[in-house]
């Protein structure tokens, strides 16, 4: 069940990504509609984060291309926002909550210019949206996991982007934060934004997302939740790894063999 859409906001064509020569994603072809709340779902090691990172051009790709709003990502950076995994940074960094959220404005500012008053207003607004305005001056190491996640979300909101990529925003957060985040995501969808969320909890997936991408080293399904989140497709996604596929991947790594003859 891989449904392709017309006028996609995100188009991934024949994407293969390898770590240390071992392919973790094989030939992904998918398109996502505008204004959708998309869940990227699959077991551990399925390449969910890898897919999102490759879409954002944070990883070298073995083959294929990604188009966002019909253009290469570097042309449309200002319309795109990324919420990395919470653990990807050192929270002991000497910065306040406000400092971190203000970073969301840096892309618009470009090199050399300093944040203006309007940028500070935007950062404060973003903090209000996630209910963290009282923590603006707090040192970031003093935050709980849920609060850290809200700060990252506020930083992304401060960018005022049209499409958001979020890597496990619900991992290790409290119930209150999870509800607050999903509320926020729904508001964003109503404003016509597209939100792509890496998600690991099957229970809540059906309720949260209107489009799901099922992934397990290859694309199993991509479509509206009610059609793609079926028993059969889930079994394909979670029903163990394709042993031959991962064995071939191991071989490629061991023999230092390229996964494609020429890089397209």
């Amino acid at each position, binding site marked *: 069940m891989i449904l392709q859409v017309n006028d996609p906001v995100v188009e991934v064509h024949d994407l293969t990504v390898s770590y240390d020569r071992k392919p973790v994603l094989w030939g992904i072809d998918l398109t996502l509609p505008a204004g959708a709340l998309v869940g990227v779902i699959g077991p551990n090691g399925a390449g969910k984060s890898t897919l999102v*990172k490759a879409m*954002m*051009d*944070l990883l070298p790709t073995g083959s294929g291309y990604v188009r966002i709003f019909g253009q290469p990502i*570097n042309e449309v*950076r*200002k319309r*795109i*926002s*990324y919420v*990395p995994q919470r653990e*990807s*940074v*050192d929270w002991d*960094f*000497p*910065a*306040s909550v406000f*400092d*971190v959220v203000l*970073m969301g404005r*840096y*892309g618009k*500012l470009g*090199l*050399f210019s*300093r*944040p203006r008053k309007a940028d500070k207003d935007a950062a404060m607004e973003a903090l209000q949206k996630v209910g963290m305005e009282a923590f603006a001056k707090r*040192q970031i*190491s003093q935050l709980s996991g849920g609060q850290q996640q809200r700060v990252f979300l506020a*930083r992304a909101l401060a*960018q005022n982007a049209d499409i958001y990529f979020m890597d496990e925003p619900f991992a290790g957060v409290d119930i209150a934060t999870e509800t607050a985040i999903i509320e926020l995501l729904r508001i964003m969808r109503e404003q016509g934004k597209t939100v792509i969320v890496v998600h690991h909890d099957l229970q809540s997936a059906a309720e949260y997302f209107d489009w799901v991408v099922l992934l397990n080293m290859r694309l199993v399904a991509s479509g509206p939740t009610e059609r793609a989140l079926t028993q059969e497709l889930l079994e394909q996604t979670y029903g163990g790894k394709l042993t031959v596929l991962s064995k071939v991947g191991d071989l490629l790594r061991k023999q230092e063999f390229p996964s494609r003859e020429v890089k397209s």
Partner: protein
Amino acid sequence: MEAFFEFFSFADANVRYVTIGSVLLAASSAVVGCFTYLRKRALVGDAVAHAVLPGVCLAFILSGTKNPFILLIGAFITGWLSLICIDFITSRSRIKEDTAIGLVLSVFFGIGILLLTAIQHSGNAAQSGLDKFLFGKAASLVGEDLIAFSVVAVVLLISTIVFYKELTLLCFDQAYARTLGFPVRALELLLTTLTVFAVVVGIQAVGVVLMAAMLITPAAAARFWTDRLPVMLLLAALMGAFSGIAGAFVSYTAPAMPTGPWIVLIISMIAILSFALAPGKGWVARIIRQRRNRSLVLEENLLKLLYHLGEQKQAYTVAHSLQELLQRRAIPEKQAKAGLQKLKSQGYATKSAEGWHLTTQGQRRGQRVVRLHRLWELYLTQYLHLASDHVHEDAETIEHIITPELEQKLMEELSFPVLDPHSSKIP
């Protein structure tokens, strides 16, 4: 002492120059070092510092002069080369970065020492003084050298101010910086170049062997005092500058002394003092906190004891002898006495001929501790389903830290209980 006043009156123009030079060098490497430290690339600074030595020597051999610009260029080239080697080794082999740094550092430094020895035995008249690159000599910072190195130091300071926003973002969240469209590779290159330059100018004062200390130690020390990056940069610069002046002073009063070790000793002293004295995070603050905790526990235990004894007799303010107290609970006699004295001075207990009494306030506080103890026992049995004979030990510590708000919450969650799991009344 005389030398001290002579130096710090700055009457001698030479002294002024040396001081200005040392301050600029030390401060600029401290500021650049803050970013290296925050990027967790401290060891890389050490590798670069050692790797500039062969560059300096080669530049001297090839040019035959000690022109600071030529030596700087030589230092810069090998410093850079070492970084490229580290990157190459880590990306093209299974060797991890720390190993690669160790390899590159020792190979480059070894070549440097080899060349230096060769120069010293070559009988070249101009060779004297090259060895100052090993351990530094602040007093030799005069004339052309001073101007050249000071200019580089000022450029370094200005660059970190101009690129403050970008460098901060790079150090905090590199992937995010890329998604914003910042030229991350170029910024990495910039920070590396700044680090190499800081090392190259700093070795004049400190020498290659100890240069890493000038990059990293001020940053690590400053981090203890503040959670704000601008303040951290400023503090690191001040600490660096102070050690720079001290180094210049030593170099001035004892020309035979290498300056580097002195500067490093002084900045290390500052760092050790910072680790010890910094508010909140320092050792002293932590020791004080632990002592305060211990004496709080002792006092509250004594109050609890007096309250328990009073509970048995249903008369809370009657006297109890010290012996009676110690029989009930094994507290070292000396500690118990000191604790009781403290309670007395705080007005929670009084002493008469018969022994120790609780005051009204003392009774209240004792009652609160006993209540918290029994509430916590009840909470553990009800919410954690622990057996009632397992909960006493936990409650012994928790009773001292529960705040009034938590107490209120506990009362609500347990729906205002009357008896604890051992059927004692919750007062």
